[in-house]
């Protein structure tokens, strides 16, 4: 097996907050394989977004090590090994759509012609060709999120970190976006770490689902999703899909100690 894309070893995270300490993550060890789609799921406040930020070196762990592509997370960030997609599209409102997609390339010093070509290619990938000259406010929420995916992929990072990217979308848009994301992953071979609190979403998208406990967040179980690929519209009606959803749900229920 090739080198893991992401490796967390005995990672703990404690925040200093007003009036004391918050133990966000406790003794997390996890490997994300190259080319894999891994979801982090758990109740809100379980530290799944924090974990994503540790992988991206946007936060530093209190204890343990985070390795991305065999390098310390800091080095991986400086090498621009990953792209990040947030819950809100975080497009810069003064930039047109194409200019937003070009932003990372601009920062990396790519010349204008190559930037424009790349932005056009990325907008085609997320099926927004022809929208390059629009401003973000002229697009719907789903389209804006597609632009932010195009932006994250513009510099061809091998890893995509996604923090509840479809959380703010309506159900129908959300399902369409899930299909598109899987198509994009097939086309690009990107490794994806995906934070969600939707059980069906995790089951539909993932190769594996890491189930987390409430604070302090621990990984209680990693579930293999044995659904055939590529996942298609009919996958959602497959009994094996319902079985996977049930397995994730049961796992979450077990840790919450719900009746």
């Amino acid at each position, binding site marked *: 097996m090739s080198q893991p894309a992401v490796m967390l070893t005995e990672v703990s995270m404690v925040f200093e907050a007003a009036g004391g300490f918050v133990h966000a993550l406790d003794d997390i060890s996890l490997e994300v394989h190259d080319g894999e789609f891994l979801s982090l799921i758990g109740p809100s406040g379980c530290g799944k977004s924090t974990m994503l930020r540790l992988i*991206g070196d946007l936060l530093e762990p209190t204890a343990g090590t985070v390795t991305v592509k065999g390098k310390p997370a800091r080095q991986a960030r400086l090498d*621009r090994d990953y792209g*990040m997609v947030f819950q809100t599209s975080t497009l*810069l*409102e003064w930039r047109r759509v194409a200019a937003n997609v070009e*932003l990372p390339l601009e*920062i990396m010093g790519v010349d204008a012609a190559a930037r424009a070509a790349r932005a056009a290619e990325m907008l085609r990938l997320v099926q927004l060709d022809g929208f390059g000259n629009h401003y973000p406010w002229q697009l719907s929420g789903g389209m804006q999120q597609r632009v932010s995916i195009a932006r994250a992929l513009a510099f061809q990072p091998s890893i995509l970190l996604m923090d509840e990217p479809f959380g703010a979308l309506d159900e129908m848009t959300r399902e369409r976006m899930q299909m598109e994301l899987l198509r994009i992953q097939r086309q690009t071979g990107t490794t994806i770490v995906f934070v969600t609190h939707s059980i069906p979403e995790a089951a539909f998208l993932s190769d594996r689902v890491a189930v987390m406990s409430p604070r302090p967040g621990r990984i209680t179980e990693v579930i293999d999703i044995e659904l055939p690929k590529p996942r298609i519209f009919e996958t959602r009606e497959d009994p094996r899909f319902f079985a996977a959803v049930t397995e994730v749900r049961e796992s979450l229920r077990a840790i919450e100690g719900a009746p």
Partner: protein
Amino acid sequence: MTTRWRRALPAFGVFVGFIALWEGVVRLFDIKGFILPAPLAILRAFPEAWPEVWPAAIGTFLSALAGLAVGTALAVVAAVGAARWPMVRAGAMPLAITANSTPIIVLAPVANAWFGLLSPWSTIVVVAVLVFFPVMINLVRGLLSANLSELELMASYAAGRRTTLWKLQLPGALPYMFSALKVASALSLIGAIVKEYFGGSQARLGQYITLKAGNFQFEEVWTAILLASAFGIGLYLLITLMERTFMGWHVSVRAANV
């Protein structure tokens, strides 16, 4: 274009009505010229007053503009520093906010003692100090308005502080900057004229107004008042034009253009 003119019609009507009402009231009640001259009387005073009042207005306007430029430039530097270093911010912001709540125009009579009666710098410095605080405070607020996700996005690109400032924080602060400039442009003319009331070159609006009022030449006083307000409006329009040019994307400008 035609809809634009049609939208301007009510404002134009009110303006004309206001002038007519002013003229009518002055005539009807036979108001004395030293209390309020009629618009037509002021208009008649213009040709004779012009050779004196126009250079005075230009001189005052240029001082105000220079003060506005100096004060704004210093405020931008200070704001970038305050946004960059929390220590600077913690130290400087309370002082800036206090100073902004102080009627700094009280400096006017003192400024002549600092730089000499005839030096243009005494006006420029008063205006610059007056303009500095509102611009700085608003710009700091604007620079710090970038939200956490946006800052994380820049960090994920391994963007340095300078890149983050140029690509994220400064464009994001433009709406704050233009609001501040609109306030500051009005302050700059007020500052310049009030400072000139306390002495300085005769060829300035403040001195012109003091002198003519002392001689009971109130039509001439009003020519100066009208020129001052014309320059104020011009400055405001210039800033609005810049705002539309550099900030067409912003919701405030979008709404204005609909």
